[in-house]
């Protein structure tokens, strides 16, 4: 697969969506507006997308976006398990998202699409646009007659070394995630966080300790890999992380050398190594083999001390694949949308905040963020 950026995966398609029209932000409203409305209270009469028991449905095109129950035709934003589920008749996702989906879902009937490539499905015109969440992740734009809706999927505005950067897509209605939709969430630049992680690793290595870091197997793990300094020592991985690495390397993602932890590959053979494992493995018996290791978690939730203390790790590195408060607000403004529907996260607060800023906003109760993604993001 061709690559246009050093470590970017998907990039067969380099056409970008046109620059968005920026609308001016409203003044912060300091008197409390009424509580956020449910989506049906702010929904248009013939909505482009609406919520069903199986997921977000587009009647004009007869398809679903990231449905949580089996449907004939599913458009998938990205490969995380709360968005890409098994059992659908046909899948449509970006070319770069498909390998991981196939790896996770087994044999599926799936078709790939380039970023910004338009496709007519029934009475709808759809296109996928970079979401910057993980390699291959997309926002999905749906146009029916003159009306444009965008489903954000999961996204971050800050960018990283492995995903195609988020692009705002102008629309009338923006369905946005808001996992971190509160002002206590503010991310530092990635480079600063990676420098902290490398420093932590080097200190542990100097003290003769293994560094054990919890990160979601798809996305966060590779993002860490791309930012680690391999000059410090060896990088070992849990099997789940290594399997995903293999899929992404085959796609052309350049990652530093890693070795999967086995009986032969251990703290003894690789003293001072950094080990990347999924969060669940970190808490279980698997992690005990490394002895008194220094432990850490890389997640946006680490912005809260209480969460980090609950996980019982030494360090919490605030590294998220979701937008922070500023990112969410900037993204909403950049779409120029007049109606915003908030899904998974602090939906009620975010919607109410947007209403205070003069937008029509509501909450969309989806099933996203209710699986592994919830804690590990």
């Amino acid at each position, binding site marked *: 697969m061709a690559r246009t950026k050093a470590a970017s995966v998907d990039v067969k398609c380099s056409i970008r969506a046109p620059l968005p029209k920026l609308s001016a932000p409203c003044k*912060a409203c*300091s008197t*409390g507006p009424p509580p956020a409305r449910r989506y049906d209270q702010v929904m248009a009469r013939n909505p482009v997308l609406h919520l069903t028991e199986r997921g977000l449905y587009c009647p004009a095109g007869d398809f679903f976006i990231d449905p949580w129950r089996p449907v004939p035709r599913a458009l998938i934003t990205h490969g995380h398990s709360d968005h890409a589920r098994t059992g659908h008749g046909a899948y449509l996702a970006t070319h770069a998202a498909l390998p991981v989906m196939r790896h996770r879902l087994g044999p599926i009937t799936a078709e790939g699409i380039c970023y910004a490539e338009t496709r007519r499905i029934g009475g709808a015109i759809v296109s996928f646009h970079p979401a910057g969440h993980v390699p291959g992740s997309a926002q999905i734009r749906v146009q029916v007659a003159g009306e444009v809706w965008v489903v954000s999927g999961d996204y971050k505005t800050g960018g990283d070394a492995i995903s195609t950067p988020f692009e705002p897509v102008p629309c009338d209605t923006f369905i946005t995630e808001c996992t971190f939709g*509160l*002002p206590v969430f*503010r991310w530092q630049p990635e480079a600063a966080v990676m420098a902290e992680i490398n420093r932590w690793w080097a200190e542990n290595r100097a003290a003769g300790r293994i560094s054990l870091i919890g990160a979601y197997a798809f996305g966060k793990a590779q993002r860490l890999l791309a930012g680690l300094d391999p000059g410090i020592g060896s990088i070992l991985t849990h099997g789940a992380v290594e399997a995903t690495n293999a899929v992404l390397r085959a796609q052309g993602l350049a990652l530093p050398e890693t070795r999967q932890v086995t009986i032969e590959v251990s703290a003894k053979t690789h003293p001072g190594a950094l080990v990347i494992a999924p969060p669940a493995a970190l808490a279980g018996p698997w992690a005990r083999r490394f002895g008194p290791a220094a432990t850490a978690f890389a997640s946006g939730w680490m912005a809260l001390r*209480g969460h980090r203390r609950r996980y019982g790790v030494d360090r919490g590195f605030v590294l998220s694949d979701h937008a922070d408060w500023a990112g969410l607000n900037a993204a909403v403004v950049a779409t120029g949308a007049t109606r915003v529907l908030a899904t998974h996260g602090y939906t009620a607060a975010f919607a109410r905040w947007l209403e205070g800023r003069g937008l029509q906003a509501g909450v969309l109760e989806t099933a996203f963020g209710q699986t592994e993604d919830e804690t590990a993001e």
Partner: protein
Amino acid sequence: MNRFAVLFQSLDGTTSSTARTLALAAYLREAPEPDRLWTIALLTGRRPRRVITAGKLAEWAAEAAGIPDWLFAESYSVAGDLAETIAAILPPAETTTNRSLSDWIATLRALSAQDEPARRAGILAAWAGLDATERFLFNKLLTGGFRMGVARGLMQRALAQATGLDEATLAHRLMGDWSPDTTTFAALITGDGAQASRPYPFCLAHPLDADPDALGDPTDWLAEWKWDGIRGQLVCRDGRVFLWSRGEELVTDRYPEIVAAAQALPEGTVLDGEILGWAGAPLPFATLQRRIGLKTVSRRTLAEVPVIFMAYDLLEADSTDLRPQPFATRRAALEALATDLPPELPLSPLARFDDWATLAAHRQAARDRGAEGVMLKQRTSPYHAGRKRGDWWKWKLDPFSLDAVLIYAQAGHGRRAGLYTDFTFALWDGPALVPVAKAYSGLTDAEFAEITRWVRAHTTDRFGPVRQVVPELVFELGFEGIAESPRHKSGLALRFPRMLRWRRDKPAAEADRIETARALLAHPAPRAYL
């Protein structure tokens, strides 16, 4: 505050208590003395006087961050810590400052003397010049409640490492009525600038989980009743009387009848004992509670809730520290002393036994006396500083229990932030559920996480941070006692309620009825026996 912030980060950046001790010891060796002293003060719960209310701080922070108050409140309920919430929502610092911890505290004190606009300006200016960690710490100074993952024992260990003094000596020197204003590091720690009021560190017992048979020969032990009041220390020195609670709070003024009785004690005497509500027999803790918060006590309350100080131990006599002597020797001296004391200073009676079966019977009968079990003390035991395993045991009765329905849930704080952990439980009263208790503890993190998801999906109403939920989940509550209480909707007050287990097997309809709880009240009233 840089050095203090670095200390905080190294304490906060590891879960190993060895590493924490080392980091704190290094700080206590190297930091300037006033900072060391303030650090010790903060870690032992001595904080500068409050400059401003939490409400005002929240208001100013929300304003500075440009967010509405309701959004601040939402953020706070998710972060579970006010200092942290403020540090996180404020825009990044504009300038940097490098001032010491004691310097900042001096600034805060200066602010407390000023009017509100000046205080506001001072705090906003401070926020603008501190990075996120320093801001968090500064806010902690403003709001109180410094823990930093440092328990008392760890702090004493670190101080021992830093000074070469032994831990028990340090534990004693850190007790009592001192503040960085009244002493210096040298006077407090190395010079032993003793104050007349200074209590000894309390000797604490471990719970006895197994049969006492394992404790060996019964004749090596003495037993007393375990009373349910407030553990205290009565200090008579320099012709004055000081009454300390176990939380190291000086409560002398709240219990005038004890102070009056203490005039009968000889100079240079320190007693360990229990502040108990008493009317011929122990009053329930709920009754004593009416006096806990009162700084000045009305004549009516004095009459309604009389208190005594039940003497357990003699720690100092003739101004001599008796703690190293065997318990049996101290007890004999206490008995000799107690022969001629006023009734407000009774001697804690022994529960006499020759074999473990007799003691077990005493324990079973404890409730009849208004006690919650028995205490076992080895005859040869010195009076230890703190909780030391082996010489003192508390052997409590099994708790009462009731199956109650979860009706309200609220998110926790600190490490429970974002989890629903604070619950209100109800019992059936006819067809209605009446709240009887709040409980926060007893479940695993995994269970709390599961209940949190359930609460989110089963919320029927919200009152600020409190969610009303579908009355569906049943929990077995354990509690130490039950008393009538006109202040509670149910007319009942439970003592130390906690969750024993989640009754997944029980539908809400089968939870206990209020009559069942009332029947527990009918337990024979404690008989007078002193």
